[in-house]
């Protein structure tokens, strides 16, 4: 395999999606080819910058704002849900129409307030509509999906970023082998 072939494997190698034989080929090649090793390092760095965004979750008020205007007012009667949904949908349609018309005239500035939010507010919850999610008795961040539980912040020192160093031991044995 020449350098071009190896470099072609690098984008998937750095993300762990390469096949085993591809991975081995890359690892073997970069251990002897310093240019390719440097190129691989570039790929790693670029990806690392991207991965860094994993700790950049949206702020709480943005997240909570998603649900805040969505919840329909609880109406009495079994078919309240359907009615609420209907009102919501109609409201959105009107809202969209209205704002679309407005938008055509408006100049590009800071951007208009999104239509969806406005119209959803037509059925904003009244007092007492915020019920606790009693049904299952769970806290909202008590998640059942394993993926969700991975997101928790790692303590960071209050100082500029840099790489805190601790090498990783890949294997450990107790053979008592010594080199000298």
């Amino acid at each position, binding site marked *: 395999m020449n350098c071009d072939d190896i470099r072609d494997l690098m*984008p*998937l190698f750095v*993300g762990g*999606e390469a096949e085993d034989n591809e991975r081995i080929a890359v690892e073997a090649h970069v251990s002897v080819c310093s240019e390719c090793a*440097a190129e691989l390092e*570039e*790929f790693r*760095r*670029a*990806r690392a*910058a*991207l*991965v*860094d*965004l*994993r700790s*950049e*979750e*949206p*702020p*709480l*008020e*943005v*997240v*909570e*704002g*998603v*649900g805040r*205007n*969505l*919840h*329909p007012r*609880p109406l009495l009667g079994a*078919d*309240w*849900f*359907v009615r*609420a949904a209907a009102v*919501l*949908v109609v409201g959105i349609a009107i809202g969209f129409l209205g704002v679309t018309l407005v938008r055509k005239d408006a100049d*590009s500035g*800071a*951007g208009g307030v*999104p239509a*969806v*939010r406005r119209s*959803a507010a037509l059925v904003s919850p009244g007092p007492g509509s915020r*019920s606790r*999610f*009693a*049904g*299952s008795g*769970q806290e*909202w961040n008590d998640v*059942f*999906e394993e*993926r*969700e539980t*991975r997101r928790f912040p790692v303590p960071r020192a209050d100082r500029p*970023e840099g790489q805190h160093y601790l090498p990783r031991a890949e294997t450990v044995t107790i053979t008592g082998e010594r080199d000298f």
Partner: protein
Amino acid sequence: MPDAQEVALLRRCQGGEPAAFRELVERYQRRACWIAHNLLNSYELAQDVAQEAFLRVFRHLANFDLKKNFYTWLYQIVVNLCIDRLRKLSRDRAVDLEEVGGATDPGIGPSEREEQTELRRRVHRTLDRLPAKYKAVLALRDIQGFSCEEIAAIVGCTNATVRWRLHRARKLFKGLWEGHRIEVGGDETAESA
């Protein structure tokens, strides 16, 4: 494989329980918002898209096949809405999506004015230069951590296509990322190879 607990929750939603729907929203709003932000680089737009996504879920939940994974469906909607939005935005004007995020809407609050570090800004700027479908797989894989299979389900293509797009996306990103470092120059902290 859908969780039995979630299936129960979804059934309650389909049955018309407001508390159930609230619970569903509260379970997924953070992630939905986050994915949208990855693609749109604006908290305001992200919140907007997330709301819209839940509304669509609301509308179509009765027809949702409970044997399928809910989150795949939800994120599918989120990603599609984002791609639509991106298309619209790029058509309307040559926009730096960061500017769109600087909302004067009081509903967003001081968080919107929080500074991203310079590095993260650059990442977003670089991401924004990628075509939407490449940006989507890249964000879903490297930022959100989904597997290739999940991404295929969310984006609606084959596993092989996902890998191909990832390959292209990472190559593009890396090329732009390096380019970034060279072109910015002076005020940049020197990064020796």
